[in-house]
C-alpha cells in the first residue's frame, strides 16, 4: 500500500471532467479529500491523500498528468504503529538508513524516526504491517 499527499491543479479545460471518479474506478485507488476549491468552468485546486497499490498509484498519477492536471507531490512520512509491531526485527533487513535497528542484548526493535527517509521499503516487509505511511501535514 502506497499513500501520498497530492496537490492537484486543474485548468479550465479539465475542471468539469470526472477525474477523481476515474481514479477510484479505473485505478482502484482510495482518496481522502483534505481541501477542494473548484469553480465550475474555471480553475480548481484539490489537496488530497491518495492511496493504493504502488503500481496502481503510478498509473493513476500518469493518468492525471496525461489528462492535463498539474500534480505536486507532498512528502509523506513513515511511522511505526507500536500497537501492531510485535518486535521481531524482520524490517531491519531492508531499512537503508538504520532508522530501524535492534537493541542488544534485549533484542527489542527500535525506530528512530529522525533517521527515517520515508523510503517505505519496510512497509510491505513488516509481517504485522506496523510501518504506516503518514502524511506530513506541515509540508502542505
Amino acid at each position, binding site marked *: 500500500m502506497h499513500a501520498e499527499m497530492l496537490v492537484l491543479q486543474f485548468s479550465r479545460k479539465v475542471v468539469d471532467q470526472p477525474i477523481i471518479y476515474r481514479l477510484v474506478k479505473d485505478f482502484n485507488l482510495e482518496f481522502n479529500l483534505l481541501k477542494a476549491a473548484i469553480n465550475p468552468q474555471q480553475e480548481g485546486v484539490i489537496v488530497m491523500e491518495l492511496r493504493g*497499490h504502488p503500481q496502481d498509484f503510478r498509473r493513476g498519477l500518469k493518468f492525471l498528468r496525461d489528462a492535463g492536471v498539474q500534480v505536486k507531490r507532498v512528502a509523506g512520512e513513515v511511522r511505526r504503529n507500536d500497537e501492531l509491531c510485535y518486535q*521481531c526485527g*524482520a524490517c531491519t*533487513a531492508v531499512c537503508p538508513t538504520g532508522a530501524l535497528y535492534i537493541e542488544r542484548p534485549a533484542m527489542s526493535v527500535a525506530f528512530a524516526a529522525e533517521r527515517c527517509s520515508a523510503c517505505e521499503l519496510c512497509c510491505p516487509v513488516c*509481517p504485522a*504491517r506496523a510501518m504506516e505511511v503518514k502524511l506530513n501535514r506541515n509540508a502542505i
Partner: protein
Amino acid sequence: MGNYQVNKTYQEINEKIKKGQAVVVTAEEIIDLVRRKGEAEAARTVDVVTTGTFSPMCSSGAILNFGHSKPPIKASRAWLNNVPAYAGLAAVDVYLGATEPATDDPLNKVYPGEFKYGGGHVIQDLVAGKTVHLVAESYGTDCYPNKKLEKDLTLKDFLNAVLFNPRNCYQNYNCAVNLSNRTIYTYMGPLRPRAGNANFCTAGQLSPLFNDPYYRTIGIGTRIFLGGGVGYVCFPGTQHNPGKLRGENGVPLSPAGTLMVLGDLKKMSPRFLVGASLLGYGCSLAVGLGIPIPMLNEEMAHFCAVTDEQLLAPIIDYGHDYPAATGRVLGHVSYAQLKTGKMELDGQEIPTVPLSSLVRAREVAQILKEWITQGQFLLGEPVDLLPGSDEIHCVPTASRDS
C-alpha cells in the same frame, strides 16, 4: 533411565504449585543458576522452567462450529470475511487455515504479492472480539434444506472455536541466505542477492524443544501456553522427525521435532495470535507458545541450561538449494552469533535478521511463570511421549522442512 540425585514426580510438583510454593524460573534464568549451583542443586531448588516462542507458524488454523440456523444448512463451502474455510466436515463445522488468502487477493500476480488479509488475520480479528462475516453455501438436502447462509458473528457466537495447529514449535530451524543474483521473497522474509542478509527464526535458548531435546517431558497431554490461553500438545506435529543428526548435547542440528497443539480459541488473545503477511509468500499467523518443563531430575536441569552458544542452526541457500531440494547445508552458525547481528559466510560478513520475536517470547515465558507461581496452571503429565524420546537416532536427512 539412570540413577539421579534428584527425583521429583509430576504429582509432587503439582502439589507445590497448588500450595503456591513452586519455584519457577524461565529457560534464560536457569542458565545462570546451573552455572552457579550445579545441575543437581538447580534441579533441587527449581520445580519448573518455562520456555517461550513467538513467530509466524504457518501450519496453524481454527476449527469453528457456527451453530445451526433455521432452516438448517449443511455447509459445503464457506467463507469468513471472504477467506475460504474448509467445509468438508459435518454440517456446520469448518476449518480455517492460517495461510488461506482472501478470495480477491491478487496473490503473486503483482509480484511480490502483499497478502494483506488471510486466515491468520481472521483468527486475530476473532480473538480481538471483532465481527466477522460468514457466508456458507450448500447444495441442500432433505434434512438440511437451506442453500445459503449469511451472518455476522463474533467469537462468542460460535458454538465452538478451537485453535488447532498441526505443526508448531519447530525444534531448531534453518538460517536462510540467498546465493542467487536477485532478491527473493520467501517465508523466511526477503533475502537479498549474494547473501545480502541471513534470516533466522527461533527464540534460541528460550525455545521449548531446545530445552527438552529428547522430549523427556513434552509429550501428548502436556499443558501449554497457547495464543495467550491454555492449550495442549495433542500429538507429534506433522513432519516430526526426531532422527535428525544431533550435536554432542543432544540438540538436533537441523529442524527436527514438531508439535501438534490445540486449545480453546475463545480464551486466547490478539497479542499472542497475530495475523501475518509475508511479502511474496503468503498469509500466516504468528503464534505465542510456551511450555513448562518440570525439573524431574538433574538431567532436565542440564538440558534446560543449554545456551545460545551451544545451539546451532543450519545455513541454507534459499536461492537455489532449498527450491531445488538438494539438501545441501552451507554450514552451521550458533544462535549466539546470529543474535549479534552479523555472521561470516565464506569470508563475507553478512547482517543477521531475526524473524521470531524474542521480546514477545520472553513475555510468554514470563506469563507462564506467573500462572504457575500463582497456582493457576498445573503441569499435565504426558499420557504418551513423542517418538524419539526413548531412542537416539543419527540419520542425516534433507533439510527441506517448511
